[in-house]
């Protein structure tokens, strides 16, 4: 089993993601350069956080046209696993691999802090086996407000595609617990075939004892223990 982390110009969580997978989860990881056309035989592709192409035009809008995205899209269409975190989520939405859009935070401000997430989908392997409790995970984004039209939202809910919802530390849903105004508190979604995942919060930033919070590791461990077996 092999992970590939795509490096776009302006990616800045690529090293963090590689480090976490390698040292905190003991996985085989390679970096994939955006100008290449070779996924190097990776089973699981991760699009990391950052500011690909400086967020010019619109978050994720330019990175979506990077050469390697052709192969990433083909990989996903073949049923291969792809996950986008933060800017990676924005790119997957722009690429049409995930439904919905990510808008400017309701506060109109970038926001970096710990929030809580409640795992939702019982169909997506990323969340199906996660014990039901609030997970403390950091966010760091200016454009993280998930939005989808009414029909789309109904489809997401009916098909159990919502991966995580923002919640309070006790797991309850309040307006205050929603850090960016996302519709229905949505923090992450899956595609209809449950092989493409996207989430705004950063589990890789909460995966190391040294940082005093390993709630993110429980989430990423699902990739190894459930998704890729």
């Amino acid at each position, binding site marked *: 089993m092999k992970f590939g982390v795509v490096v776009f110009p302006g990616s800045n969580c690529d090293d963090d993601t590689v480090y976490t997978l390698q040292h905190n989860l003991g996985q085989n990881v390679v970096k994939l350069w955006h100008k290449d056309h070779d996924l190097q035989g990776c089973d699981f592709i991760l699009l990391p956080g950052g500011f690909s192409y400086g967020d010019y035009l619109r978050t994720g809008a330019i990175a979506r046209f990077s050469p390697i995205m052709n192969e990433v899209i083909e990989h996903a269409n073949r049923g291969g696993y792809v996950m986008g975190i933060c800017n990676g989520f924005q790119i997957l939405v722009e690429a049409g691999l995930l439904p919905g859009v990510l808008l400017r935070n309701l506060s109109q401000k970038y926001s970096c802090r710990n929030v809580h997430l409640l795992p939702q989908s019982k169909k997506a392997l990323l969340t199906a086996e996660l014990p039901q409790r609030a997970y403390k995970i950091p966010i760091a984004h*200016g454009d993280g407000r998930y939005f989808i039209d009414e029909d789309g939202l109904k489809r997401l809910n009916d098909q159990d595609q919502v991966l995580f919802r923002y919640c309070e530390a006790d797991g309850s849903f309040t307006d205050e617990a929603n850090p960016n105004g996302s519709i229905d508190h949505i923090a992450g979604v899956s595609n209809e075939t449950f092989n493409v995942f996207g989430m705004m919060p950063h589990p890789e930033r909460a995966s190391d004892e040294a940082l005093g919070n390993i709630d993110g590791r429980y989430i990423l461990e699902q990739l190894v223990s459930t998704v890729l077996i």
Partner: protein
Amino acid sequence: MTSTEVHDGNALPTVETARKLGVLPEEFDRIREILGRTPNFTELSIFSVMWSEHCSYKNSIVWLKTLPRDGERMLAKAGEENAGLVDIGDGLACSFKIESHNHPSALEPYQGAATGVGGINRDIFTMGARPIAQLNSLRFGNPELAKTKWLVKGVVKGIGDYGNAFGIPTVGGEVFFDECYNTNPLVNAFSAGIVEVGKVAKATSYGVGNPVFIVGSATGKDGIHGATFASEDITDKSNEKLPAVQVGDPFMEKLLLEATLEIIETGYVIGIQDMGAAGIICSTSEMSAKGEHGMIIDLDKVPTRQSNMHGWEILLSESQERMLVVVEKGKEHIIQGIFDKWDLHCAQIGEVVAAGPNDAGRLHFYQHGALIADVPAYDLVLGGGAPQYHREYREPAYYQRFKQFEISSVPDTSADELTAVAKHLLSHPNIASRRWVYEQYDSMVGTANRSTNRPSDAALVRIRDVKRPDYSKGIAMTVDCNSRYVNADPFVGAQIAVSEAARNLTCTGAEPLAVTNNLNFGNPYVPEVYWQFVQAVKGMGAACLKFGTPVTGGNVSFYNQSSDDGPVFPTPTIGMIGLVENPEHQMTLDFKETDDLIYMIGVAKNDIASSEYLYSYRKVKESPAPQFDLEEEYTLHQGLKTLIQQGMVQSMHDVSDGGLFVALAESAMPRGLGFQVSTDKNYRTDAFLFGEAQSRVLVSVKPSQQGAFQKLLGADLKLAHTLLGTVTAKDFVIDSATVMTTGEAKDLFDNSLGKLMA
């Protein structure tokens, strides 16, 4: 490029032209002497920026040289490289520096602050160090003013947008408000990075025939004469200098970071320097002077953003995200290949030439085939021919007047008034949580910030070494300066600034290592302002010597002064780094469990001088600095280290702005706990709870360790300590009366600044 006649197409400048460019008549004479002829306009522009205060430190350098600069861990002397360099063991070094961007931020807060962040990070990675964390120190005027809110929002967004995209966490800093900063806000940016010893890139140039490259962004007309602009008072005409403010692009900076580290890693880089103040002319002259060689540069080869730029504009442009690189001849294609990979400009603009028989290297600049400037590098730079002045100084009248303050002239806080004072302090913009500010910064990228989930007095960042995944050492860092104290007494106030920085590091479990300073003052030609500068440098030097923390470099920003408001408070911001060898010794400031005992270590004093309480609650603006004794402070720190190493305390938090009460509140709030304490009736209540006498620290201790703790402090360390009370589940209780609930306190503390800025 054969012409030897120097001609830039302009009429020869007069002493009047020189004056307009900020060059004094005696400096104009000196330039004629150096060149053996009258400089042309291009050459005069070159001298005007290189001899500006910002580049030459001409009015500060004689005093800066008195600061302690040596230490066994120092790998580069102050001013020798782009930033200080400290050995942290295991073949690694920490490069760190602080720099101001005050004047640009006063006019265009967003770009001014953003480019300040960009500039300081380039200083770090141009040495081959990958930045690991950033801090900033900000000062603004009255927060009720619409203009101040505009400045605060612009500066914070500028720092955030640049630093967040650049991808290095902003892990701490300070924000302070006072009317003296109404016209002149201060924006000081700090960055620290890690580099392998032996792989440090130098800001030098040598090797005849070696190619000189300009890399990164194209050169435009922005920021021309920015260095000169930063060397003047701000007036109502300053808005006309808007083109002197640069525009930043963090995406470009991120690419430049990766490409720069990659070319340095090849080993083919002779020298490299970022282009900040004074652009191409500054890098070419400083690198050449250091390497004792000359350069021939063809300005036609510089990638520009627009056509028809004058030679002097290309030379002086402060366009951001650029570097000058001298490479081993024959390796051009390797360097070119790396910049191509990152889609960045990389243009050879000239080559290194030998020094002449009578000089240490000359710079020849050509444009359209003509030699437009021919200047000796050495004479342009600090430490070379740049002027150095001894300025007149005089004790200002207010200094003695402040000392006449009598505490008896102020009524003590009555028991009925405690809640009012407590609310005033916890919601005051100088004390309330900076959450509204720091949540706009990415503080967690890099997965290295150990303080996110473990609050401490200084930020602690682990060194993440891919080659050694088990590596666990960390760098603690802080920026500190209570400028109200420095204004009241520059000598004592500067000592306190250094001491508070060291105390914050010590309370985090770190061993303080070294200092970088950002000296923000008014106009150095005003003797009373210069007296503040001299006294502050003396105080800082004394304290740095005591703590064994040499000054590795930094930045001087004069002319923070306006016709309306006069000079700002003298603000010598101290940036200090410390080493945490063992992460288990990281200490945190939050109370952990109910029934833990709360102690104050250090001596209570009947002192409210210069406290936030006296200044903003009692509205007494004139009082001396708080009581302070350097020896007492030093002894305290040594004892604190022992307490931490022996595992005697659950939490540790220094007593600073807002006094003991605010320290108690800040320790209680993170976990939603409370406290129950008694005041000491030998002191005035206000002095005991809200006074800011120095050298005091708040700790909490497990009841089971009380005996051992008291024995260690009393018999062994001989440190004064007072049992104040206990940690409780909720409510702030003082002398049996509930002053407020923890919930009320948290609401005021967490949300006041955000409400003010809304």
